[in-house]
């Protein structure tokens, strides 16, 4: 058998963001792989130390281009903990609404990328068409499709009017119908299943060892979801399932993400219906007292972690960001071992990499 080294990345049609793999092949089979990251490292943790608490909201929103809101929200929560203020319930509901919309948008985007990488462009087009609905709603809510800039320390900036509410509920019905239909197509699409079943296997034990989070962990049977495990308003008042599968392959991840999308649509509806009236923000003190705070939330890819320390000045002394992609990256050499070259694309798409998140 001939041995070849195939470089995948930093630029490759498979990867939407720069990341470099060296894949060692024997014939068509992968024997080993190495990974190099850091191509989109922007030094955001360092930059955070040189900007004020308020400027940082906009900086951390740019860590990720897909889950921008959840970054800003988690950061704001950490600062609010330092200040000892609670956001008004309506603000918490609005934040959660955008989080769920972002999850829908992220999961549908992911489905499209997976389908594209296995050569099923039709699903790609349909998934991205349906994703537009979520983007439209977010645009109506915040004025931005990707970067929303709705978070401020102490609450949110923009409200939802009663007319908007009705309109969004209507759009959610469309979204619900389309996602259900898409799920039906995916579930019955045999050629997609032949490509994804048994590929990129991670056992429950491996998932635990590598501290994997999010849909990848849930597809291997690890029952972890920060929305439920560390409940905050409004998730403590809403009831929702955490979909789980045990197969641990890319197909199970597909099912987990699709079911989560449906649950998120449902959650959006509940949030809109149960949203209390009240102010959007509380006045935040100008000075942040010294102290440390940790804030965790469930981003579309899993547990997002922010650690913020203040030394009493107007800039934070340290901001640490842990994005959910990092532990998934660590499992890739394991998942790639023994698959064929053709499955490399499926494995890499299956974990839903966000390189910009991981590099910060």
């Amino acid at each position, binding site marked *: 058998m001939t041995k070849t080294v195939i470089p995948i990345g930093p630029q490759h049609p498979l990867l939407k963001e720069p990341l470099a793999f060296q894949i060692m092949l024997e014939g068509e089979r992968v024997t080993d792989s190495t990974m190099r*990251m*850091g191509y989109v*490292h922007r*030094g955001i*943790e*360092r930059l955070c130390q040189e900007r004020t608490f308020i400027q940082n909201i906009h900086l951390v929103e740019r860590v990720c281009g897909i889950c921008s809101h959840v970054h800003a929200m988690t950061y704001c*929560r950490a600062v609010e*903990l*330092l200040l*000892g203020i609670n956001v008004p319930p309506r603000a918490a509901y609005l934040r959660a609404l955008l989080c769920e919309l972002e999850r829908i948008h992220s999961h549908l985007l992911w489905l499209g990328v997976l389908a594209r990488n296995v050569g099923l462009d039709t699903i790609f087009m349909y998934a991205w068409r349906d994703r537009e609905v979520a983007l439209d709603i977010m645009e109506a809510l915040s004025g931005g499709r990707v970067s929303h800039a709705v978070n401020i320390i102490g609450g949110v900036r923009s409200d939802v009017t009663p007319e908007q509410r009705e309109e969004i509920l209507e759009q959610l019905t469309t979204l619900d119908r389309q996602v259900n239909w898409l799920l039906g197509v995916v579930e019955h699409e045999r050629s997609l299943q032949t490509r994804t079943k048994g590929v990129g296997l991670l056992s429950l034990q491996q998932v*635990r*060892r*590598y*501290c*994997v989070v999010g849909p990848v962990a849930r597809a291997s049977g690890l029952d*972890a979801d920060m929305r439920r*495990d*560390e*409940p*905050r308003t409004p998730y403590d008042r809403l009831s929702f399932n955490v979909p789980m599968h045990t197969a641990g392959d890319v197909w199970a991840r597909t099912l987990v993400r699709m079911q989560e999308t449906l649950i998120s649509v449902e959650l959006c509806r509940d949030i809109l219906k149960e949203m209390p009236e009240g102010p959007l923000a509380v006045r935040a003190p100008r000075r942040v007292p010294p*102290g*440390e*705070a*940790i*804030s*965790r939330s469930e981003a579309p890819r899993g*547990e997002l*972690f922010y*650690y913020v*320390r203040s030394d009493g000045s107007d800039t934070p*002394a*340290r901001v*640490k960001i*842990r994005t959910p992609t*990092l*532990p998934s*990256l*660590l499992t890739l050499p394991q998942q790639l071992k023994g698959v064929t070259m053709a499955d490399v694309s499926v494995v890499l798409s299956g974990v839903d990499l966000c390189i910009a998140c991981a*590099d*910060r």
Partner: protein
Amino acid sequence: MSDTSRLNATYDRIVCALAGLCLSAETRIKSAPGDELVIRLPVENLRAAVAVLVNQLGVTHLTTITGEDLTPELTLKYHFWQERGFTLEVELPGEAPVVATIVDLVPGAALYEREVYGMFGIAVEGHPDLQPLLLPDGWEGPPPLRKEGDRD
């Protein structure tokens, strides 16, 4: 409030198990719901403490490792999760800091230890593949998150 008491019981268990190894245990870091437990350890006890957590308490999830330059010394915080978050904190000297790896106990720490190595220049002893995680090849400046870089 049985939920709160269950969570407090988790902290009690952890504090009990690490009692002989730690310098102090306090709920210092603000978080919700309730402040998070921080256990300060001498750096030589770190591996022993993580071994106790993994083997006796069944802790598996390490969220991340936060390094920090508190000139003159450095600290490392190991953020774990079991039912709720808690943190192990060790203090390292600013000059030639060395810490033992925990990759063999918690394999998920591999990338975080590499990041700490790159960003703070903390040598992680026993790490199977110790290279900076995010820095470009041939980076020559000081570790980017160290404070001495500010003087230039």
